[in-house]
């Protein structure tokens, strides 16, 4: 990949939720598009982009955990595999893909439990449960998107957990991204690692997840308040110490007050 392709690839990988306009980038440039395929694949798998299967109504997410290689992915809920065109984010060429392996019963019960537990907190979300390649762990993946282009807002929540079936302990990450772009460009991004244990079955596992995510979201709300009351306030005051707007006609007169201020700088 040349440096130009690398530059464009970096733009794709850092695109905000729901705003990779691939068609716009792709037109008249089939060779550029082809060279960018790895970047689109990386974006789609990292951002848990969802696709609709031909003939199906449910969305299916893309991730490294359900990748079969060669552009194919599988869905445990419908037990199908499918091909993905990463640039257009379209699925095709479905085949049966029976759920097999030592964790298939656990995956089935987790699909049920995680879907209903998620519906309790996410108005709209897509989940996926997959055995990892070596069968050593089960991955629980969730993505929730909220696109509000008429209000210049987009947001994405991603949860990823790896469950060790032998101990029922989970380690995972929650990532939340928000983008606002009305006469500006504001991005919020946060990521939090979580370690959970103490559950004995699928219902218990998803209950632990909901509990931990509730706690994280409460902490995140507190972090917003801390930033607003902390560094934001420390950067620029809403009003001067004098509690009055500047008297620009008498700006020279402030020189004295400026010296005085040092004497009562504790006063707010």
């Amino acid at each position, binding site marked *: 990949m040349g*440096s*130009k392709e690398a*530059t464009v690839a*970096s*733009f794709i990988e*850092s*695109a*905000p939720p729901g705003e990779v306009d691939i068609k*716009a980038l792709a*037109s*008249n440039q089939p060779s550029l598009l082809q060279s960018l395929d790895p970047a689109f694949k990386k974006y789609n798998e990292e951002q848990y982009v969802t696709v609709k299967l031909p003939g199906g109504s449910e969305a299916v997410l893309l991730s490294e955990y359900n990748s079969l290689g060669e552009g194919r992915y599988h869905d445990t809920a419908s037990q199908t595999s499918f091909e993905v065109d990463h640039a257009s984010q379209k699925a095709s060429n479905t085949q049966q893909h029976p759920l097999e392996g030592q964790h298939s019963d656990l995956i089935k019960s987790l699909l049920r439990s995680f879907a209903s537990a998620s*519906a*309790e*907190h*996410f*108005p709209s979300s897509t989940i996926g449960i997959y055995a990892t390649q070596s069968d050593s762990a089960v991955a629980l993946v969730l993505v929730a*998107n*909220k696109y509000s282009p008429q209000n210049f*807002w987009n*947001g*994405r929540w991603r949860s990823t957990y790896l469950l060790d079936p032998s101990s029922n302990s989970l380690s995972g990450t929650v990532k939340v991204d*928000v983008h*606002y*772009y009305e*006469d*500006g*460009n*504001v*991005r*919020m*991004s*946060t*990521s*939090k690692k979580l370690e959970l244990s103490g559950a004995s079955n699928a219902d218990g596992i998803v209950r632990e997840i909901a509990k931990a995510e*509730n706690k*994280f*979201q409460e902490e*995140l*709300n*507190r*972090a*917003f308040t*801390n*930033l607003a009351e*902390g*560094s*934001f*306030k420390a*950067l*620029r*005051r809403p009003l*001067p*110490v004098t509690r009055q707007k*500047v008297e*620009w006609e008498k*700006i*020279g007169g*402030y020189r004295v007050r*400026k010296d005085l*201020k040092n004497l009562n700088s504790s006063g707010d």
Partner: protein
Amino acid sequence: MATADPFDAALDLLRRLPPSSTQKNLNGIISLQPDLEEDLLSSVDVALTSKRCVTSGRDYLCCDYNRDGNSYRSPWSNEFDPPIEPDDAAEVTPQGRVRRMEEALNCAVDIYRELYYEGGTSSAYLWPLDEGFAGCVLFKKSASQGSGGKGGWDSIHVLEVSEAATKRSADYKLTSTVILDLGLQSAAVDNLELAGNLTRQTQQKCPLNGMRDNEIEQSHVVNIGRMVEDMETRMRNLLQEVYFGKAKDVVGDLRSIQPLSEAERDRAAHQEVINKMGR
């Protein structure tokens, strides 16, 4: 994209990519489209850098408006660092009336900065136009990592002033960008980053008081100062709303802490009370 103007496309892209990497993305776009360099550098606001004036020892802020090649002009000494060719300097160094107003404006915003920012750095630059003058007023303040997180504020106010022929009033056009970068690292959230920029514009006609040149010059400083103050106060409120109100609301829209079935029951119960009262 094939028909879109490359410059507009570049601006649209920069509006969407992470604002914390604007400088890096700007360099990337320029490497793809070298023709856009000058236009992009003068229209995309990036976080300000500061330099120490060799003559006065005071810090000043660097932007495209006090830049000539790789040299920057200090508002305190009116000299370029590193020095530029005398012929070039004569062309791009403000003189006379514009320089007098620039000096007065620098003194005024320096006091304003102390009152609102209690620290930081400020600079103002003016240059003549055919009918009037233009300028920019810059502020930069950093907050180091504490329990309330770390942060950086850069405000960039660009103005265009056209004076009425009578010199009794002037039209001021102001375009302001605030780049606000906030971050928090804690055990509770690991890492929270809130970074971005907002741009707003305003236009205003203000009276010029006095008859003598120095009175009119002072009048401009007062008008510019007041406009910048009002704009910054407005933008601070807006930033507060976007960063801490809306961003938090969107997270709440993505995920509800309260179970949705419970929230639905509450809503139904609430509706029932309203219905009963209505009877």
